[in-house]
């Protein structure tokens, strides 16, 4: 099989055959941002273009959805080892994992309990529906949350006690030792 080798600085960096392209080492970079790889098609279509990938962290915080604010202290500064959010964005979908470790709380009420601070604004309900998450592990809540939905055109997750939409978690469900891990995904405008 005839091979074409692209050589730079005395080393073969790229090899082209009749069927494959091989990068000897290192990464594949595009000279223009926003460009991507078309997968599964032979023409350039947006729906088949993988044009965005990013990993990072964000700072999740508990918040009240109602008018009664809460003040929450965290074990470790938010964003540190004990309270942290991490995300992987592939295309327009954001996958997230959140750990929140509370060490003080005041102001609990019957207002809905949210987690704020998601790294990207979500789609609106109309264009994307709700994303959401499942509580992987929760302890020391007065009533443990089980699920959460990502609210449309926001960066907030509304937590639910389980049993359906009529049972949102409340800020008074939190205690000074509440601990929560939640994982999920949602779509974004960006």
């Amino acid at each position, binding site marked *: 099989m005839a091979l074409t080798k692209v050589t730079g600085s005395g080393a073969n960096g790229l090899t082209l055959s009749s069927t494959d392209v091989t990068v000897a080492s290192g990464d594949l970079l595009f000279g223009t941002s926003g460009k991507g790889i078309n997968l599964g098609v032979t023409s350039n279509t947006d729906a088949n273009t993988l044009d965005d990938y990013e990993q990072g*962290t964000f700072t999740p915080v508990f918040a009240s959805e109602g008018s009664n604010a809460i003040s929450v202290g965290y074990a470790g500064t938010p964003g540190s080892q004990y309270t942290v959010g991490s995300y992987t964005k592939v295309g327009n979908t954001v996958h997230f994992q959140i750990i929140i470790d509370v060490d003080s709380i005041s102001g609990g009420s019957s207002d809905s309990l949210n987690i704020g601070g998601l790294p990207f604004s979500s789609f*609106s309900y109309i264009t994307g529906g709700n994303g959401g998450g499942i509580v992987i592990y929760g302890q020391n809540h007065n009533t443990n949350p089980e699920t959460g939905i990502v609210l449309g055109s926001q960066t907030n997750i509304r937590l639910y006690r389980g049993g359906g939409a009529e049972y949102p978690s409340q800020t008074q469900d939190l205690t000074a030792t509440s601990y929560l891990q939640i994982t999920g995904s949602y779509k974004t405008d960006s």
Partner: protein
Amino acid sequence: MGITKETKQDKIEVVGDFKHIQVRTATIIKEDGIEISRSYHRHVVAPDSDSSTESDNVKEMVKLFHTDEVKKAYADHLAKAGA
């Protein structure tokens, strides 16, 4: 030169109907001036967010995009979401 650490907001973008301002902060580690590591941390400034601690660039964008009209539309949206 050794190891250096640099933090900068390398992407600020406005998205969606309510002009959410998405801010990406990059932490860049360099060895002898050559980048060896880059990590990202993100936050979003909504129309109802407190922007008093944001960078000057973000504050300028808040001033530009989070108009009274946008703030009202977002407040109305939140009120509906709570229903």
